[in-house]
């Protein structure tokens, strides 16, 4: 199997002779770098099909490696190890071990869909990222990511009531991922964020008139009402049950 990915080259395979003269010409140093071929034997020819069977991965086989996805990628601009084009390449070659090397960042895809929008082959790389992250969790290579915890909490509320309540999603997410909410409100950004919602800073500065002028009334009342009486869709019970059954059937064949 030909290997032309830089990250696939094992440093041990790169050979440079200190001193080398070929037919009287000194080619010492960089000019004589040689890369020994490496044979990969543990690839999985079924891997593209495995990923293709997961939600979002259906079109992974269509890729012709133009690189538009990585070129447009929001995450690649932050971290050049985040390389969808390369992961799609590895998927189609069955190089699972290469995917596993990047297990801690694949889930970070922000679903901005720049890749899916620009892809000339309709690979839908954003979906492939989700499928790969899903596979890494299924195979136990990664623990359930924060993102998956969030997705599940969100979906649970949708199936149960037809609608979500955003403070409940947020607090259940913090609880499930072990974030100390009290601390975050007391000392962290969340407290300041909440204080700004009520413009409490003004009160501390003694500008009561200005505080009253900016006092939100309808919003907090409505949000408080929602927190107590969870929003739900009328007549949703049957729909929720049908969707739950569909999900179960899809998961267990």
């Amino acid at each position, binding site marked *: 199997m030909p290997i032309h990915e830089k990250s696939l080259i094992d440093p041990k395979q790169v050979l440079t002779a200190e001193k080398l003269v070929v037919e009287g010409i000194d080619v010492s140093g960089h000019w004589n770098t040689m890369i020994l071929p490496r044979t990969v034997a543990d690839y999985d020819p079924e891997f593209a099909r495995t990923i293709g069977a997961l939600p979002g991965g259906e079109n992974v086989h269509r890729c012709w490696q133009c690189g538009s996805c990585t070129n447009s990628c929001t995450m690649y601009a932050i971290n050049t190890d985040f390389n969808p084009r390369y992961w799609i390449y590895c998927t189609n070659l069955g190089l699972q071990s290469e995917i596993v090397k990047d297990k801690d960042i694949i889930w970070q895809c922000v679903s901005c869909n720049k890749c899916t929008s620009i892809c000339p082959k309709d690979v839908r790389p954003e979906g492939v990222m989700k499928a790969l992250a899903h596979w890494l969790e299924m195979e136990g290579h990664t623990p359930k990511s924060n993102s998956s915890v969030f997705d599940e909490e969100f979906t649970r509320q949708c199936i149960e009531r037809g609608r979500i309540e*955003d403070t409940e999603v947020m607090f259940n997410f913090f609880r499930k991922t072990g974030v100390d909410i009290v601390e975050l409100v007391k000392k962290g950004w969340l407290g300041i964020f909440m204080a700004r919602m009520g413009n409490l800073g003004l009160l501390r500065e003694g500008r009561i008139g200005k505080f009253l002028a900016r006092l939100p009334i309808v919003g907090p009342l409505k949000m408080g009402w929602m927190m107590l009486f969870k929003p739900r869709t009328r007549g949703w019970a049957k729909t929720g049950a049908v969707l739950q059954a569909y999900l179960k059937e899809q998961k267990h064949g």
Partner: protein
Amino acid sequence: MAKVAYYPGCALEGSGGPYDRSTRALVDELGLEMHDLNDWNCCGAMEVKNVHPMLQTYMSARNLAIASEKMGFDTVMAPCNGCYHNLKKAEYECATSAETMQTVQDLAHKADDPVYKGDVRTVHLLEWLMEELGPEGIKARLKNSLRGVKIANYYGCMYTRPRQIFPEKDQGPGSESSYKPHFMDDLLAAAGAVNVDYPLKTACCGGAHTLSDSDTSTQLVLNLLQAAEDCGAEVIATECPTCHSGLEMHQVRAETKFGIKTKVKVLYFTQLLGLALGLSARKVAIHENVSDSLDLLAEKGII
């Protein structure tokens, strides 16, 4: 004038409350007609598709089916980019795959829900305003002005991407562009704003991981805020509750956690248009934003 079914979605019912209130006030003031979609459900946002894409397609299609079967409407209007995107995506998936359409209809029959038949279209609030009034219509109704306040128009991801699900975009003059959207620019310019040339109109705010990967989101939001300031903007106008909350939240987080302070204000475009139409700041819920823009608006003579 065409009536539409208004689909607020979960965010506008909660953290995006100011967007909901300013949308209703604006639509009312403009004399347009919309009716709340009966018994709507969550569209699936960015999360449900990761558990199973069909759940999301069904949940979105169910809302469309209610509009046509229960209310006799052919248009659903969503001001939230996430809702708009998902409903458009459900339209696209059902229109391009007979199998998906069949599954959606089977699930509807099983659940005794209205059945989606592909006869409803989704529009964003921006598109609806452009269709019904356009910049000229806004100009004719002005009672105030945005008085040259400098605005960076931020559209985010879900309004234009992936372009495949928005077949009506990129159709030449008059249509919206998926690469350089301009509907919000057009409406706000008509209301007296000066739009700055903002290169990050459709960049990502990291909304999908705003809590689960906060540092990435803070960095992405900082890009947006700092670029807006570098372009000379005093205000970033938003048209999506997730982007809006993300910008507000990470502006605070960048300051408290990383000590990076930015002063550009964040406002929903509906709040800005509302002010230009003579509505009060309280009526369009500006005091309920976390980003406190009242001083700036007063200084500019807008309120």
